[in-house]
């Protein structure tokens, strides 16, 4: 390919590009901005639980739209998803079609959640759902569990991403001396990301999380678009870009993609179920309560449904497709590996955006401006990690405080005590995640981190198990408490079968046929959909034979939900 030859010719020019101290300066400015937001949010807050978790239920359109977007997209937006497109080709661009559905869910689900929150003072998903089904403690715990199973892997993995980003931002720095000891640059990145995130969540609660999400959301969205534009220009403009892409090998232009992973059924179930699962996870649910009005949610839904998929389809996804032209993956001993310019291991496909832009933006825009833009994009990737980590830390704190501590351990706790317990949860969760990541880095065989990484793949599937209950409580109102409990247990249990846990607990032998079945199913469908199907069948069947919530309670619930 002409372009590749051209790129090889300019290798020496690429090697001469020095990032210097620019990333450090931009990172420093970014950190100062985050900390300032935390302090200002603290000055505007009061000590009530509602203020700490929901910012007084007063967030406007800009804040609501951007905090929902920033929470939804972790580092996956700039690393994982482009990595999959670089590896497999065009089939995975269809992932973007889940976003208009997610946008619609912000209003369709969010407006009902908001009205009930206003009338009844709800703050977490379990507040609403457990209350509808008669206030069952077991159901409340199960809902909290699905939330925790979603949130924890996300926190740990986002913190870990901070280490990798530090390595990319400062490639010439291996260690930094701090307090007399030498710390690897990975460890410094992990510590900076986690401690800074913890600080501003602790100080300002929801208000500070949402404000920083606004800044981070702007950074992520503009980073996605700039990255896309730069790649199209690197290949000679739109016409030449798409001509080059059309000449890619057929496996990159059609289903099931170069790795054979993407059937239409799998793509469709991901678009339907992963999107809804993401929109009902605790972090997003809390954002529906925090909005100022249903009009706010409506406008946020429209911004989300149009803007975010556009940033993917016309931005960062084009980077990955362009990278396939410039740096085609290679096959070695039957294993697909990224091009040497991207990485050397099969798990380094997700470095594609960073590697491509670090080399080509300075060439396009000149070293001075180029290095600044690359640094901003790298900070945008860090922002994507932080915005997900902060929202999940905050949501974990809300779930454990409201659904466990306040409900079972200290029912008479004061508002002040509850917010301080929530802050303690944030500190403990951050330090635990930090410790896990550090242990995992120093010892590759460290099991807990490997298991959490596995859970990350099914986190959305766990969250999806709340969907039948949410749909029933908000729209259908035919299910029963026992049905809901049995359904969620069956759904979460089914998703667990797709993780390595059954084999770890019961040994490989007893589960070989099950492993085969789950591997076949996960190749065909989204895992969340498999759990959802079992969940909904059990929920419906058990509901047929058990008693429904009282008619009066359902009528009162319905009336509060439909109140103007």
């Amino acid at each position, binding site marked *: 390919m002409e372009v590749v030859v051209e790129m090889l010719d300019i290798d020496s020019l690429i090697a001469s590009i020095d990032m210097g101290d620019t990333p450090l300066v931009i990172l420093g400015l970014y950190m100062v901005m985050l900390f300032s937001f935390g302090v200002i949010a603290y000055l505007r807050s009061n000590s009530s639980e509602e203020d700490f978790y929901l910012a007084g239920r007063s967030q406007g359109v800009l804040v609501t739209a951007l905090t929902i977007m920033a929470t939804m997209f972790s580092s996956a937006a700039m690393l994982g998803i482009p990595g999959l497109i670089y590896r497999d080709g065009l089939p995975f661009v*269809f992932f973007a*079609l889940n976003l*208009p559905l997610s946008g619609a869910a912000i209003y369709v689900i969010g*407006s009902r959640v908001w009205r009930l929150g206003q009338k009844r003072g709800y703050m977490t998903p379990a507040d609403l759902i457990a209350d509808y089904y008669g206030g069952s403690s077991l159901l409340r715990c199960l809902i909290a569990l699905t939330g925790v199973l979603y949130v924890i892997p996300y926190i740990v993995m986002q913190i870990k991403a901070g280490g990798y980003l530090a390595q990319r931002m400062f490639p010439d720095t291996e260690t930094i001396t701090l307090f007399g000891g030498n710390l690897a640059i990975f460890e410094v990145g992990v510590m900076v990301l986690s401690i800074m995130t913890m600080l501003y969540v602790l100080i300002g609660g929801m208000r500070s999380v949402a404000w920083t999400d606004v800044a981070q959301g702007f950074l992520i969205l503009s980073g996605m678009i700039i990255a896309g534009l730069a790649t199209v220009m690197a290949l000679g403009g739109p016409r030449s870009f*798409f001509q080059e892409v059309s000449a*890619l090998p057929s496996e990159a232009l059609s289903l099931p993609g170069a790795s054979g992973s993407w059937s239409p059924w799998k793509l469709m179930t991901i678009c339907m179920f992963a999107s809804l699962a993401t929109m009902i996870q605790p972090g997003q649910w809390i954002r529906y309560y925090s909005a100022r009005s249903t009009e706010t949610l409506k406008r946020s839904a429209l911004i989300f*449904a149009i803007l975010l*998929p556009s940033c993917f389809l016309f931005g960062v996804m084009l980077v990955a497709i362009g990278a396939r032209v410039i740096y085609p993956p290679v096959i070695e001993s039957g294993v697909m590996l990224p091009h040497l310019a991207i990485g050397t291991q099969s798990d380094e496909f997700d470095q594609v955006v960073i590697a491509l832009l670090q080399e080509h933006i300075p060439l396009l825009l000149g070293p001075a401006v180029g290095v600044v833009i690359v640094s901003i994009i790298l900070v945008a990737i860090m922002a994507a990690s932080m915005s997900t980590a902060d929202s999940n830390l905050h949501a974990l704190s809300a779930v454990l405080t409201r659904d466990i501590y306040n409900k079972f351990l200290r029912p008479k706790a004061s508002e002040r005590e509850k917010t301080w317990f929530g802050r303690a949860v944030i500190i403990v969760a951050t330090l635990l995640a930090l410790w896990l990541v550090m242990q995992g880095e120093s010892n590759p065989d460290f099991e807990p981190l490997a298991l959490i990484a596995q859970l990350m793949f099914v986190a959305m599937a766990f969250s999806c198990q709340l969907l039948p209950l949410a749909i029933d409580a908000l729209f259908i109102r035919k299910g029963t408490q026992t049905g809901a409990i049995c359904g969620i247990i069956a759904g979460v249990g089914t998703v667990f079968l797709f993780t390595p846990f059954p084999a770890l607990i019961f040994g490989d032998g007893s589960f070989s046929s099950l492993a085969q079945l789950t591997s076949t199913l996960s190749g065909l469908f989204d895992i969340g959909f498999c759990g959802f199907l079992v969940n909904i069948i059990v929920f419906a069947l058990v509901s047929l034979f058990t008693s429904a919530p009282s008619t009066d309670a359902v009528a009162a619930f319905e009336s509060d939900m439909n109140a103007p």
Partner: protein
Amino acid sequence: MDPSPNVIELKRKSRLVRILGAAFLFALIMGPGPGLYLINEYAKSGGSIFGLPALYAWCLFWFGIEVAIVLIAAKTLWK
């Protein structure tokens, strides 16, 4: 007795919800779903639509349909 304007409005809304819901489901089936089989062979042969690779153009088209449905819903139903 003629139904009241409120009842007529509710019926109209309920019909619109069903139509838009069905249209969105259709877009999901045709876009990322089995509808892809209609275009996949053409995409495999390196075919293009308006100068774009076939699969990418297909994705943009169904994205446009999904957005149009969301906009209609916002204008007519989300009050």
